[in-house]
């Protein structure tokens, strides 16, 4: 079974100092924020949109928004919660815009699976000691999972990525997505069941 996540907390002293420095336009604070959060934000956005080019553009806009509005950040939530909220909103808006233009992620998903093969990050789906068949199987699984995520309703996709990819707590996801915790749980349950059906259909699982 999955583990419990840490409870939602206010900003830590370290975070407050970092934000204060950022509000004073300290370029080293900018570098620190980028070092701490760029990969997290990029990964979340990529898993939601399933397209690297779009994810890059959206994630850049997320940080531009963060720095533009950092003076208004009051510290009543964790900085990362605020950051994820901005990322989720930007992604949601972009998906709406792309949806109107009949956007398709399929080609990117193939590319993402190929890129994953070259990625040095270890994956439980792709053991480093596995042979070529197992690697191929792992890549196929990743592709099917990502396609399944892309096929979910946007509000289901958000909670699934925040919970099962980023391992955030229910209350943090509720704060990020501005819905009640009960809604987060029911959306998550529906998302997981829909993904289970997708995987059963494409991988021939029971």
């Amino acid at each position, binding site marked *: 079974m999955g583990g419990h996540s840490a409870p939602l907390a206010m900003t830590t002293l370290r975070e407050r100092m970092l934000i204060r420095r950022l509000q004073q*336009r300290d370029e080293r604070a900018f570098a620190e924020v*980028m070092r701490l959060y760029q990969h997290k934000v*990029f990964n979340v956005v990529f898993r939601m949109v399933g397209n690297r080019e779009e994810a890059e553009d959206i994630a850049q806009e997320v940080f531009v928004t963060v720095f533009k509005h950092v003076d208004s950040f009051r510290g009543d939530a964790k900085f990362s919660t605020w950051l994820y909220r901005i990322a989720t909103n930007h992604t949601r808006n972009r998906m709406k815009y792309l949806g109107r233009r009949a956007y398709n992620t399929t080609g990117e998903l193939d590319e993402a699976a190929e890129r994953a093969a070259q990625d040095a*990050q270890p994956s439980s789906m792709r053991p480093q000691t596995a042979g070529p068949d197992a690697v191929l199987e792992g890549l196929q699984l990743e592709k099917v999972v990502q396609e399944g995520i892309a096929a979910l309703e946007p509000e289901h996709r958000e909670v699934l990525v925040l919970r099962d990819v980023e391992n955030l707590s229910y209350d943090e996801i509720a704060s990020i997505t501005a819905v009640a915790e009960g809604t987060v749980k029911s959306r998550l349950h529906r998302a*997981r*069941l829909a993904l289970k059906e997708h*995987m059963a259909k494409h991988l021939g699982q029971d």
Partner: protein
Amino acid sequence: MEITVDHARATELFSAYWDEDLAPADLSALEEHLKSCVVCRREYQTFKKTVGAVGGLDRVMAPPDFAEEVRARIRKRSRGRFFSPRKMAERIPYELFSLVMLGLILAIYIVLQLSHPAQLKLP
């Protein structure tokens, strides 16, 4: 009161079971059901594999020049002002500035009063 679950109810509880978020009564009822129901046990195995597969996805890293691209966007949008040291007037809160100004005016008034004592007017 003892709770019993059927297939549909068991499926409803999978997500909370995975997240260890079930009430004790639901937890024991589901575990009892899973012990005896091979269909639900198999369904839960598939559910576990699915959620585990999402958690096992690679972390996709931002490109190496990502931070530099963000910095360039910020510089362009702010016309180079964002990373410039902020002007004194922007750094000092207005309230503090007002208090200092009031203090200064009061000090000048006191100094002027002391250096020019009021002249007594004789009848």
